[in-house]
């Protein structure tokens, strides 16, 4: 089982960026008003952010990183590792993390790595970065997580267009011998790889029913496994940050685990499903004050494309968390 703990790595900052361009599901074409109302009520998604033609996921993450580094007063020369999680890279070849290393002006002594992950991407990326930093004693690292998923949707596809949205984020990690352990539980089911699929030269397709039942079945046992491993309880968690895919699904998972609604903030209404960026977007949008001024235990849970899913138990204490940026 990929259930493990990571020592000596600490989250010190999180920032997030969304495009200024906002669209409303109330304006969807080809659907009756009744169907639109039910879609908004069920998914929770009323508004979405769409990047313009020239804006890439890497641009959103670049803006998030520059803001965060300025707030942290980090020097570029100090960064030893950069990981970029996305499913919408700048190019098929080379990886986009190398392009970001150059655009950020990071030194050649910084290693860069791309990870192709979606809904569970933030949890997976955090596990890889923190583990590498812990094992290798790398002092400062950046986790950039973002997608412009709306660029790969088929216009008129009502199983994807009303759901997905664009965003980018940056998370800063420091090596710290006093850091509280992070705990992870990561899982995969490749037999359903085609439940969300973009074939070469085509747009992305999603079998929503399959993803929904997968979430109902797998997320709560994954979280229970994580809590068991970390010897924590539901009551030890201040906030549950779920991947924002569907309001009904998140509420159903919450009911299964007796999680109070107020402990599971949602951003679906404002920002939709921003793929791998939903977790940092939710932290920055809904918990900015709390994570900036308090000591908190957060449980992060991502699930979807792959199928991949995972959860993380992390301790947050007085981190840098600038206001959500619009570009």
């Amino acid at each position, binding site marked *: 089982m990929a259930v493990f703990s990571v020592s000596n790595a600490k989250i010190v900052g999180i920032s997030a960026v969304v495009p200024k361009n906002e669209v409303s599901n109330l304006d969807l074409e080809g659907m009756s008003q*009744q*169907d639109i109302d*039910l879609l908004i009520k069920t998914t929770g998604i009323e508004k979405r952010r769409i990047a313009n033609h020239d804006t890439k996921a890497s641009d959103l993450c670049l803006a998030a990183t520059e803001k965060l580094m300025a707030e942290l007063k980090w020097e570029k020369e100090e960064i030893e590792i950069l990981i970029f999680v996305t499913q919408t890279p700048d190019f098929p070849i080379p990886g986009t993390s190398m392009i970001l290393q150059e655009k950020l002006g990071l030194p050649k002594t910084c290693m860069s790595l791309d990870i192709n992950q979606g809904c569970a991407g933030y949890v997976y990326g955090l596990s890889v970065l923190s583990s590498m930093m812990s094992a290798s004693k790398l002092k400062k690292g950046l986790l950039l997580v973002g997608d412009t998923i709306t660029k790969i949707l088929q216009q008129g596809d009502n199983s994807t267009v009303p759901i997905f949205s664009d965003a980018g984020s940056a998370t800063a990690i420091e090596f710290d011998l006093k850091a509280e352990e992070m705990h992870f539980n990561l899982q995969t089911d490749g037999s359903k790889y085609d439940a969300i699929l973009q074939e070469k030269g085509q747009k992305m397709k999603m079998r929503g*029913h399959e993803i*929904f039942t997968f979430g*109902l079945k797998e997320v709560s046992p994954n979280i229970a496994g994580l809590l068991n491993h970390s010897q924590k309880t539901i009551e030890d968690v201040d906030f549950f940050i779920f991947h924002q895919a569907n309001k*009904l*699904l998140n509420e159903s998972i919450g009911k*299964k685990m007796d999680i109070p609604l107020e402990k599971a903030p949602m951003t679906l209404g404002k920002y939709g499903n921003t793929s791998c960026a939903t977790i940092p977007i939710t932290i920055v949008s809904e918990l900015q004050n709390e994570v900036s001024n308090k000591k908190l235990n957060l449980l992060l849970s991502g699930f979807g494309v792959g199928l991949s899913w995972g959860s993380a138990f992390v301790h947050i204490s007085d981190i840098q968390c600038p206001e959500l940026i619009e570009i």
Partner: protein
Amino acid sequence: MDSDFTSFSEMIQGLFDPQFTFDYSNVESWTSMQTLIVVSALDEHYDVLLSHEELKKAKKLEDLYAILLQKLG
């Protein structure tokens, strides 16, 4: 059995806003959102997860109830 089906039917009907104009008993006509609402409710009430393929076999609510009973064993 009849009273059980009545309860099941009432539960399904109660999931939807009465202002919505649709025949909840005609499973074939359900939209994807209506289906997700029912799937979530069946998981909550009966601890049964219905796949898309299983739901496709049901034309009427009676068919869906029969599938549910079969899954419950």
